[in-house]
């Protein structure tokens, strides 16, 4: 009986996951209906396709490895040291992943370009266009993301272990080897897969900084098939190919990944400082220099127009505020839906956790949520639109398509934010809850203070991602639906680069503001530490 109640309380969560799966499957099916499988083998015989796949894989591998290699010491440094500007830096890190690619690219060019800061200061001219440029941009986008993910892992290390390390007089290196590494190495494969997917399907960056068709990605081919040729057949083939490649890689990485058995003793962290040493100081300085080189300068370049006279003029334009409003109208429902979906996944996954045969479903669910990263937003949106068109619903629905696609695209990030925390609560309190017969709402009320920071952060991430979205809105834009990124592109398209740069600043400041609002105020001050 008790067990039945348990399952029935899972119904909303099942509904959420079911909705996600059904809509995904239906939109892919809608696309497949227009495809001609017989022709597919001829696509495979194009040598360019294979060159493209090779390059996509290679740059994604390098980008994700580089991001992680830098992120590990940076995360360790940020965890152990507190310094002025640290929390601002962390907030900047969260924003870096949503900067529209064209803005980031121009920022990177201002720093590393032919007449850029680096060339002016040191006379060194980087061969920016090619692999270097792609890697610089991808590290700019993803290293901060990796740092944030790793800092969450740090938050899972029980205080007891730090206390012990302190008592034993560990230096930073031993602490890293004996404590941090055993947690990190379980989280790194997941982070790797996430960043790998993002880089594998990277598109605007690769095209702008790649130097030419030599360095191109599968995503370009998909974009071209869909937007230029409206070849639904080819687009669905390429999308499936991309899903296939990513799935194989993800399965391979997950296969190698150790399972993260979290300790359940953590409540709230208190700090124990680990013995400092010159070596540790030197390493931290190096880690910090990496941040100073990879992330900060492009940011400063992007924010620089804030001090121009144009900035005030831009702020006084009504169009700008309309665009802000439209962006918020898309981002808030998208983030809310994403959060609901994420909660459904979390609740189901942790229910399955440690229940015999059901156990493997907890990781499967997480992987299911990540699957969406492998399909380009454009493909999902097109499929969804075709499906709704067949149902005769397409016109009124374009707003909701934009919202929905943004919501599902943010899901992997939402899951990354919430899952570790939810798992932990489950481990710690499952037996207590079941012995007390606590279910559903009563459990929610008890857990809210413990999970609120991760929920708030997930919401903030989803919000930021939808705010910066350019791909889906571009497909369905209309007069009444010019979002901030679209407005930015309008300006650039009309030669108004400077005004566009100012709008980019507004977008980034808005992101920062909302991030602080949600991660600090909704999430509570406690979280702002990590």
């Amino acid at each position, binding site marked *: 009986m008790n067990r039945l109640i348990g399952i029935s309380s899972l119904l909303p969560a099942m509904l959420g996951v079911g909705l996600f799966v059904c809509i995904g499957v239906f939109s892919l099916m809608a696309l497949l209906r227009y495809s001609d499988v017989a022709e597919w083998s001829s696509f495979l015989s194009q040598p*360019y396709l294979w*060159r493209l796949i090779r390059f996509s894989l290679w740059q994604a591998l390098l980008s994700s490895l580089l991001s992680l290699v830098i992120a590990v010491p940076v995360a360790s440094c940020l965890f152990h040291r507190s310094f002025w500007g640290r929390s601002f830096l962390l907030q900047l890190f969260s924003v870096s992943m949503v900067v529209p690619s*064209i803005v980031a*690219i*121009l920022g990177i*060019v*201002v720093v590393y*370009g*032919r*007449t850029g800061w680096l060339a002016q200061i040191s006379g060194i001219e980087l061969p920016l*266009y090619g692999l270097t*440029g792609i890697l610089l941009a991808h590290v700019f986008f993803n290293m901060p993301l990796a740092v944030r993910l790793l800092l969450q892992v740090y938050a899972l290390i029980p205080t007891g272990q730090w206390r012990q390390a302190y008592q034993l007089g560990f230096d930073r290196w031993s602490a890293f080897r004996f404590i941090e590494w055993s947690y990190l190495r379980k989280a790194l494969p997941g982070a790797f897969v996430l960043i790998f997917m993002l880089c594998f399907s990277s*598109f*605007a960056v690769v*095209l*702008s*900084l*790649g*130097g*030419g*068709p*030599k360095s191109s990605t599968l995503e*370009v081919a998909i*974009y*071209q098939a*869909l*937007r*230029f*040729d*409206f070849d639904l057949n080819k687009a669905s083939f390429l999308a499936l190919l991309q899903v296939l490649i990513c799935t194989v890689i993800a399965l391979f990485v997950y296969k190698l990944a150790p399972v993260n058995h979290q300790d359940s003793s953590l409540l709230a962290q208190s700090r124990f400082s680990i013995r400092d040493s010159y070596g540790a100081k030197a390493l931290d300085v190096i880690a910090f220099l990496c941040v100073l080189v990879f992330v900060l300068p492009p940011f400063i370049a992007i924010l620089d127009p804030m001090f121009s006279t144009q900035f005030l003029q831009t702020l006084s334009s009504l*169009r700008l505020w309309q665009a802000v409003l439209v962006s918020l109208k898309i981002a808030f429902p998208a983030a809310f839906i994403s959060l609901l979906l994420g909660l459904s996944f979390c609740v189901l996954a942790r229910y399955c956790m440690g229940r015999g045969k059901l156990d493997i479903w907890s990781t499967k669910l997480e992987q299911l949520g990540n699957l969406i990263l492998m399909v380009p937003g454009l493909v999902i949106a*097109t499929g969804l*639109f*075709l499906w709704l*068109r067949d149902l*005769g619903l*397409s*016109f009124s629905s374009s707003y909701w398509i934009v919202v929905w696609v943004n919501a599902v695209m943010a899901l992997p990030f939402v899951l990354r934010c919430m899952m570790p925390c939810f798992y932990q609560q489950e481990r710690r309190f499952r037996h207590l809850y079941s012995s007390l017969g606590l279910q559903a709402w009563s459990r929610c009320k008890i857990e809210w203070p413990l999970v609120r920071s991760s929920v708030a952060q997930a919401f903030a991430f989803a919000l930021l991602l939808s705010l910066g979205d350019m791909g889906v809105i*571009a*497909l*369905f*834009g*209309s*007069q009444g639906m*010019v979002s901030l990124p*679209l407005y930015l*592109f*309008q*300006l*650039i*398209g*009309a*030669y*108004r*680069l400077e005004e566009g740069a100012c709008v980019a600043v507004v977008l980034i400041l808005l992101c920062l503001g909302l991030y602080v609002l949600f991660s600090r105020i909704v999430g509570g001050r406690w979280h702002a530490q990590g």
Partner: protein
Amino acid sequence: MKTLSFRTYSSIALATFTLSFSALSSAAQTLNVYTYDSFASDWGPGPKIKENFEKLCDCEVNFVALDSSVGILSRVQLEGKSSSADVLLGLDLNLMEAAKKTGLLAEHGVDTSVVNLEGGWSDKDFVPFDHGHFAFIYNAETLENPPKSLADIVENQELKVIYQDPRTSTPGLGLLLWMKSVYGEKAASAWSTLASHTVTVTKGWSDAYGLFLKGEADLVLSYTTSPAYHIEAEGETKYQAVETTEGRYPQVEVAAMMKSAPNKVLAERFMSFILTHDFQSTIATGNWMLPVVDLDQPLPEAFAAAMKPVTSLMLPADQVAEERKAWVNEWLNATTE
């Protein structure tokens, strides 16, 4: 009795009022025009055109702003026959065949004899609304010896060039055809020569022009009218178009109406409106392109360079449609070897 009749009258009056009001509101119909974003934006020609047309038609013009001219086409292909678009404004020469093939377009029936393009205009599905030529733009302050021909641009290894990907952008496709019409069979080797001093190939015009303005290249593929923007809007004369002795490849932007247009009558009126002064006079300093009919007033001085007579190199539309894929592959192979 009297009160009753008063009531009757008033209710009749009310009914008439409501009816006439609803009749009025249905008379004030909406014309949906799908266009690209910078056309519909505040500083583009869109708002002025909307105002001018609404004066004539007792209707409301609703611009649906999409991200590019390709975006317009893929949007209506996506929506199919149930599209709410009446008019598509902003396709270009090289998209015409693809657009025709969709079977979604209706003949416009507009008299295009006033069109002042080289060779006139005879297409039954499309009405041209502006034109220009593709051109490489350079900064005269930093580039002392600008090239004089397309061959110079291709061969001079000192020059750093940025252009757009023909798979994702219309200027990029324009260059592909330009190269093809100049080099013909030898296009592949010309591409690989150009590739050795190409800085980068971008997704669209915006990325390319942005990189150029940041000083990343000597030359960028844009339009002959781009310098006019810098002169008119910024008072900046240093950006100039390379004179290409071989001739230039034209870009003609066109409009078409949908077979399934919910508002056919208005769409037809709008199509003929395109060639009138009220539309054409907004083009030069709104869309930074040239009008397709002769206007009473000359264009601003800044357009002088763009107005110079040039040989228009133009490949037949059906050949472009047929061989585009092969030419793109040729470009891909030549530039990735």
